[in-house]
């Protein structure tokens, strides 16, 4: 079954389709954008973080750390920040929902607040951008994971924030589940 991934790298959206090789072999077919599909043989080693594969016998390896929809990928001496583009195609650098307790939004990254888009009292739908955070020269939108009403905003534009620092508190809307 083919699986399509929309990935943002270096400000450009790329499409990577992974599919099983015809005939049920061990290889995986990869199609990047409009290019010809290439067959890769994915390494079975189960080391956390490592992704290794071969293309026509040529070895490739990467080290991947994942934070929600963000991937920090190291290949040799180069490093790539890759963002998964979710179904709605929301703008670049979107940071997905947190595992924060309902009612709290904490910072996903250490960075600088570029813009605060909400104020106490605002009633928001799930997925609304509450603020924009710049980290590693990328702007990341921080979203509210649930429907709710903002009760407190703890940061201002241009504030430096630590990873995990409480940014916003809200009262989740009732009876959602």
């Amino acid at each position, binding site marked *: 079954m083919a699986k399509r991934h929309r990935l943002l790298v270096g400000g450009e959206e790329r499409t990577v389709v992974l599919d099983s090789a015809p005939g049920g072999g061990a290889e995986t077919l990869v199609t990047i954008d409009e290019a010809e599909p290439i067959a890769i043989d994915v*390494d079975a080693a189960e080391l956390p973080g490592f992704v290794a594969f071969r293309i026509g016998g040529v070895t490739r390896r990467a080290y991947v750390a994942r934070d929600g929809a963000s991937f920090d990928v190291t290949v040799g001496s180069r490093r790539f920040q890759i963002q998964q583009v979710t179904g709605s195609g929301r703008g670049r650098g979107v940071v997905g929902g947190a595992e924060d307790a309902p009612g709290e939004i904490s910072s996903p990254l250490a960075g600088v607040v570029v813009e605060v888009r909400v104020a106490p009292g605002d009633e928001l739908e799930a997925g609304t951008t509450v603020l924009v955070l710049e980290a*590693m020269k990328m702007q990341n939108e921080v979203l509210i994971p649930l429907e709710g009403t903002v009760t407190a905003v703890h940061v201002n534009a241009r504030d430096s924030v630590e990873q995990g620092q409480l940014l916003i508190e809200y009262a989740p809307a009732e009876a959602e589940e």
Partner: protein
Amino acid sequence: MPKRVLLANRGEIALRVQRSCRELGIETVAVYSEADRDALHVRNADAAVLIGPGPATQSYLVIDNIIEAARETGADAVHPGYGFLSENPAFAEACEAAGITFIGPPASAMQAMGDKVQARRLMESAGVPVVPGAEDIDPQNVGHARAEAERIGFPLLVKAASGGGGRGIRIVESIDELEDAMRVSGTEAAAAFGDATIFLEKYVSPARHVEVQVMADAHGNVRAFGERECSIQRRRQKLIEEAPSVAVDPDLRARLCDVAVTAARSCGYRNAGTVEFLLGEDGEFYFLEMNARLQVEHPVTEFVYGVDLVALQLAIAAGEPLPEDAGLPQPHGWAIEARINAENAYANFAPSFGIVHRVEPPLGPGVRFDSMLFDGLDVPVFYDSLLGKLIVWAEDRPAAIERLRRALQDLLVAGIDTNAPFHLALLDHPDYVSGAVDTGWLEREFEMPPPAEDDPSEVTALIAAALASGLGGGRGSSANGAAGAPGRGWALAGRSDALGARVRHAEGRGWRSGIGSS
């Protein structure tokens, strides 16, 4: 030998000193700031003492706290490393007053070398060549300063007597610029060092930065361990250091070493020190300054002279004489050090902070990696960007360059940016390969090339991210990939994660896949 050495430092140099101590059966005491709680130098020490919050002014620079830590833990000696308190005479005095051996020069020698005007005078009287200049500059007496400037010639430098790290230095191209430069330099120096004293120096350019390692014991023996070439600099920060220098032949080496020994003797120096010289294109060299400490780049000397400089420092501090055969006449082979900094080479060398997810150090013959890195390190924002030093040795310079390239390619640091791509690009530059560089070369001639168009890394990264975000097909899964760095948002995406295992963390702050899907 001391029994217990307190390391008044952090990072790779604290680890470096620890290693020699352990080989000699000496226990070590680490001091650390709150930001360095998990640091390797703390973990590897026999005892460790918290000395304050992250900012160095509240921890690594607080003399009283460090002396107290030494007392508390029964340390009988202190190694200051480099930076922080290493060249602070008050710290050396405080150690002596507390009955603790300071592993370094006497406070008097530090003082003499710390004041650049005083050091110039001392060197001149000892017959050490100094850069032509004028020391008795009174900012009020502009007429005199102008006359001295005309005598020296242009371009010249206005420098601060207490200056360091490039601060308080101004280039003057013509007589019209002199007054402004004197004012700016004096003001900057007064603000930074509390001393507005300035002096004038001829601007020797182009010139190489060549320095000589010296060791002096308490018995009057002073030995030189050849030169290091440190001309590859950005904003006066060294990035690559070599031993020997392509510009130094055995005859010049003998003269440099001779002068360096004279310089060390003239100020009653003891322990490890470095005499820095400017080497002009004409082969003339001038005393620049003496660094009263172990240098960052000491390992290149250790490689080509087959010596452990820290072990020698400890022996000298214990009153032992330098070994008879210390200081070979000529270096053996070639060593190059690349400073691995937490910087993004593709974004104007902006500093990079955060969690190091994974480190794979380079290994193999002739490779040494002195580093503070470990999996899970949170690079603190309070200190300089030096993560480690990659040092290689080979039979000759071309082989050393190839070895350094290989080792840089083998080095993997995931999670933060390093300047490894810069070093790799530098090693490809024909001027670096031929050795035709001077201290201004890097900023004048070198431009960081963008990644090659046909670099397959981006494709590899895209495929890896796609695999990690959920492999099409759905072959088995396990919980392996869900192991995140403790307490952080990032999870290590392994194969099992690639196969669709949900990324979750032990602690509640982590982020997981997109909001739309939950």
